[in-house]
């Protein structure tokens, strides 16, 4: 029997997700033995045309990482969707837009103006900016079109499964691939990670006081954080209460609070909004002045709450 064909592909990605796949170490060898890896731009020689020549559904699985911001990324995503039985959105960028999604706080125009004109290191006397096509020496040169906003993978194609994380940890990658190979997948649309919140498995959880009451919010670099105590109890914002468990607490273990790369817990659409409710309930403030003081201590609230998930938040917005 022919081995199932699998594609691994990056869109707007840093490469960390591909590296995470390599990090499953020798298990990768048995995966490579069990499947036919037909496309993996970061690791193999490949041609998109060979994928284009495939029949619909010929690929058993496409593992796609990275966000979508330009026409090339969208085209590749659509091609893989057409040829795949299962599409797995891999990593925070594919699932929620990821850190690049923070660009949705400003417009494409603002970004172009800064990058090609106004940044102090830019020397561009002719004011050149990338265009989708230009004619040079009798040749037409083209570039992909950059879209107004960053979107997650499910903004452009139908996604079957999600595996969040920045990047996803090896044990969940192995579990996801095994589930596909053994045909033990949960219902379509599921996230292949635990359903509960990070706090549920955090070993610091038991150190939090019975009634949490924060009077000041501090940033992690401003204090010497205790390595064992709940970050929130120390007044340090940690997104654990509103973030899906499964990461293996890699940040918590090095004394860094949760940043939210696993996205919202099961059943929640907007983790930032949920976190607001959680945070408000533990703020110990009496007066409006106290309230203003404590919110002034949070630098970039939208950026903090949606570090990995702005494109999939309920309110997506240009910063005024």
């Amino acid at each position, binding site marked *: 029997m022919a081995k199932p064909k699998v594609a691994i592909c990056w869109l707007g990605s840093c490469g960390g997700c591909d590296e995470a796949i390599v990090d499953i170490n020798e298990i990768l060898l048995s995966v490579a033995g069990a499947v036919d890896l037909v496309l993996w731009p970061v690791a193999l020689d490949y041609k998109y045309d060979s994928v284009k020549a495939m029949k619909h559904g010929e690929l058993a699985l496409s593992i796609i990482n990275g966000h979508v911001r330009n026409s090339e990324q969208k085209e590749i995503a659509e091609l893989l969707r057409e040829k795949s039985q299962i599409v797995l959105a891999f990593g925070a960028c594919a699932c929620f837009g990821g850190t690049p999604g923070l660009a949705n706080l400003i417009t494409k125009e603002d970004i172009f103006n800064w990058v090609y004109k106004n940044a102090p290191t830019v020397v561009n006397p002719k004011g050149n900016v990338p265009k989708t096509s230009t004619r040079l020496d009798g040749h037409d040169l083209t570039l992909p079109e950059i879209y107004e906003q960053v979107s997650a993978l499910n903004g*452009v194609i139908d996604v079957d499964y999600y595996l969040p994380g920045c990047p996803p940890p090896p044990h969940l990658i192995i579990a996801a691939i095994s589930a596909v190979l053994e045909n033990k997948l949960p219902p379509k649309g599921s996230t292949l990670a635990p359903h509960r919140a990070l706090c549920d498995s955090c070993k610091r959880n038991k150190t939090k006081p019975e009634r949490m009451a924060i009077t000041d919010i501090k940033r992690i670099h401003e204090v010497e954080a205790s390595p064992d105590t709940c970050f929130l109890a120390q007044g340090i914002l940690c997104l654990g209460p509103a973030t899906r468990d499964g990461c293996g607490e890699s940040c918590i273990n090095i004394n860094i609070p949760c940043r939210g790369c696993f996205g919202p817990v099961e059943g929640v659409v*907007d983790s930032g*909004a949920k976190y607001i409710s959680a945070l408000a309930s533990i*703020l110990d403030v009496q007066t409006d002045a106290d309230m203003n003081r404590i*919110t002034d201590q949070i630098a970039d609230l939208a*950026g903090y709450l949606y570090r990995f998930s702005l494109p999939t938040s*309920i309110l997506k*917005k*240009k910063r005024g």
Partner: protein
Amino acid sequence: MTENKPKIVCFSCKFGWGYLTDEAILSKQIENWVPIICTGKIDTTHIMTAFKQGADGVLILACPEGDCHYQDGNFEAKKRVHLLGELLKSMGIEKGRIRIEFGTDPEGKRIPQIIKEMSQDLAKLGSSKTSTLAAKKPAKEMIKVKGGK
């Protein structure tokens, strides 16, 4: 009702603002009125969902400060609204689109007055469609996907 009338979603506490007034009459005067058992029950996602579904503003009517039937639900709501307002501001959306009022309305006269004031304020801000840009449209539509499912 004119086309330009701002859409307000009003959550009101059934204790402070609800049980003394005639809900049947008020609900005719106020579109999108959601009586709720305690304002402490209002989650930020309820408010954000109201905006997503086209509200230009959200009004929350809570019990008088220090006088919550459930101890301090109105105080919890106040903190949430404050933080959510800050979040909206940092996303470039006007804070004034969320308003929380504390008090009671035994005669059922003050609520329409507050709605009127807020409508006037929101009319100055314009539609939340312009201030929330992409919020109404899924990313699919934003980037004009042709054949994507």
